[in-house]
Structure formats: C-alpha cells, structure tokens
C-alpha cells in the first residue's frame, strides 16, 4: 500500500512517501497508525498525538475506524492550513 506523509508528519518521518506491505492484522486506519508508530523514532514522534493527525484514504477524508481493505493510498498529515 502507498503511504503518503505531509507537513510535520512528513518532516518527522523524514520521507514523503513509501510503499508498505501491511501485515494481516492491520485492518483500519487506527491499526495502520499503531503499526507505523513502531517503525522508528521519527514515526513515534509523528504519531505521538494521534488527535493532531488527519487521514485521507484514497484521497477522501477518513477516520480512525475507516477500513483499509481494497484501498490503494493512505495519506497522514496535520490539520490543513490552506488559503
């Protein structure tokens, strides 16, 4: 699965994009973040406060419960600051 990072999620992790083969127990967004958090210090820092993290699954805004089966792309990022 393609995982994208933006804003300070990206700068904490140190990369903008990666391809990850998810283990079978990762069924939804919350599982994914739990899995990523164990991938190293940068990941731990990025996901320390999950309330501050927003998620899009296949470019649609999603929640912690959103299932990932069949999805191609998940993006994790801080609240948006456009305009």
């Amino acid at each position: 699965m393609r995982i994208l990072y933006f804003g300070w999620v990206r700068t904490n992790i140190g990369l903008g994009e990666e391809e990850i083969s998810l283990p079978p127990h990762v069924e939804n967004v919350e599982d994914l973040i739990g899995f990523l958090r164990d991938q190293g210090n940068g990941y731990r820092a990025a996901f320390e406060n999950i309330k501050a993290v927003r998620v899009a699954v296949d470019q649609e805004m999603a929640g912690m419960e959103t299932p990932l089966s069949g999805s191609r792309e998940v993006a994790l990022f801080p609240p948006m600051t456009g305009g």
Partner: protein
Amino acid sequence: MIRVQQEDFDAGQEIGAISARNFEVGGVASFIGLVRGANEKSQITAMTLEHYPGMTEKILSGLEAEARTRWRLEDLLIIHRYGRMTPGEQIVLVITASAHREDALQSCQFLIDRLKIGAPFWKKEETPVGSHWVDTKAEDDKASERWQK
C-alpha cells in the same frame, strides 16, 4: 474553474477577464491571499506551501461544485499556488461572478473560509530564528463552520 500551480498569477487580469465575459454578471467578488512579512509573533522571511497533488484538485473541484449549488453563479475561479514564496507574493485567488452581488460576495467568502481548513495545503514559515509548520487557527475553524448547512 480551478487551477493548482507553482507559478504566480495575474489577479487583475483574471478578474478583468471574468467581469468582461458575460453580460449577465452584475457583481464580481474576489479575494487574494498574500504572504505577510510578519505574523503576531515574528518576522516571516518566506513561506512554503506543500500540497497533496490529486487530492487538492479533487477538494477544490468539490468546493466549486458546492458553491455553484448553493449560489446562483455565472462564473467561478480558484487559483491556489504551492511552493516557496516570499512576503508580498500571492498565494490564492478566489473570484465569483453572479447576476446578484450577494451571491458573489457570499460564495467568495464561503470558498476562502473552506479553503483555509479543508484543502490539503500545509504552510511552513521561515523566520530569522528558524522554520516551523503553521498551526490551524481556532478562528479559521469557526469561520468554516458557519457555512455548515
């Protein structure tokens, strides 16, 4: 119409083109967002806008469609830039044109309010003492919420 681009835009020309195009238009409202040279806390030397290619276009098109449903619009243009910009540079342009001024003014405000917290852009400010990601402002959340139906 929406455009997501790195290059600067000519706001005056875009506004002029929209108001000249259509004899049904009675009012053209516009908003330009610019990089300020300072915020409440410090001087700003530059700002970088990161975005999510693909999703950005999707969200902006969705906002265009919603505005066209809620107001009677003859024309609508959103240009949003990404990349690094210095103070005084233009970040975003919203133009709405309608037979009726209220529709133009309301939809313009709606679009810029929604863009602020609903389009996948992230701002990083450079200051004399370092750079930092910009936080969402509580007032921006409130401004967007008032458009909830």
